[in-house]
């Protein structure tokens, strides 16, 4: 089991634990971003490049960003109120470690030193599956998204 795989697993596990353990909401969300992003190279190494891209773009890039926007919309101070603490070097240790681990992971993947541990399923095969046996599921997913859209619009237009 090579270093790329182990690193991705470790970063995901550590960031996942931190995401549910922090007191500051934004810290928890950012550790969630790290956990979700660290799953992307893991998914790539499991032979699913398209799924890895979707994980990075949709999960870490859209869903958690939505969380961050909503947190910032809630205009309540909460139990954290950070402010002056960010200049202490000690606070940078763990995020720097996680960021460095992700960077090393990306460098390993780009340099070709970490190869997929399972056979890569091509995007073409995945597309053939989606347009073939699973087209009903795709239509169902689009119906779900439409329902979610309608519900979110309805919830958002309520009384101010």
């Amino acid at each position, binding site marked *: 089991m090579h270093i790329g795989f182990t690193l991705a697993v470790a970063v995901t596990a550590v960031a996942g634990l931190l995401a549910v353990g922090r007191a500051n909401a934004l810290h928890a969300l950012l550790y969630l971003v790290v956990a979700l992003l660290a799953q992307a190279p893991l998914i790539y190494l*499991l032979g699913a490049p398209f799924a890895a891209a*979707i994980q990075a773009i949709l*999960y870490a890039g859209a869903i958690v960003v939505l969380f961050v926007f*909503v947190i910032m919309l809630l205009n309540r101070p909460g139990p954290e109120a950070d402010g002056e603490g960010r200049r202490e070097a000690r606070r940078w240790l763990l995020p720097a470690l996680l960021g460095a681990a992700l960077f090393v992971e990306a460098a390993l993947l780009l340099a070709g030193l970490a190869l997929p541990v399972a056979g890569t399923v091509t995007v073409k095969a995945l597309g053939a599956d989606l347009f073939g046996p*699973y087209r009903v599921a795709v239509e169902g*997913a689009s119906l779900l998204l439409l329902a*979610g859209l309608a519900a*979110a619009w309805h919830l958002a237009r309520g009384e101010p």
Partner: protein
Amino acid sequence: MIPPPSVALLLSVFLVAAGLAGLLARRNLVFLLVALELMFSGAALAFVAAAARWGQSDGQVMFLLVVTVAGTEAALALAFLLRIERLAGTLDSEAQRELRG
């Protein structure tokens, strides 16, 4: 040595367990949703690990569907969060004890 898809499956179980622990331990609604998202990602990872184990793309199709459901759930949960915060004035899940009217 444990094969990599099994290690990924172990990690997905760990993520679901960590998310469950966070779901049970936290009171603020925001942290509950964060823990829920972690559990979703663990479940999605399990499907990809299974796809790697059998060399088929069906697990990746399920991964896409899980991400879709997770996104929809996150959007609606956050919309509810905003409404609850406006109506109840707090994000404490313990404050919402009774179903009224």
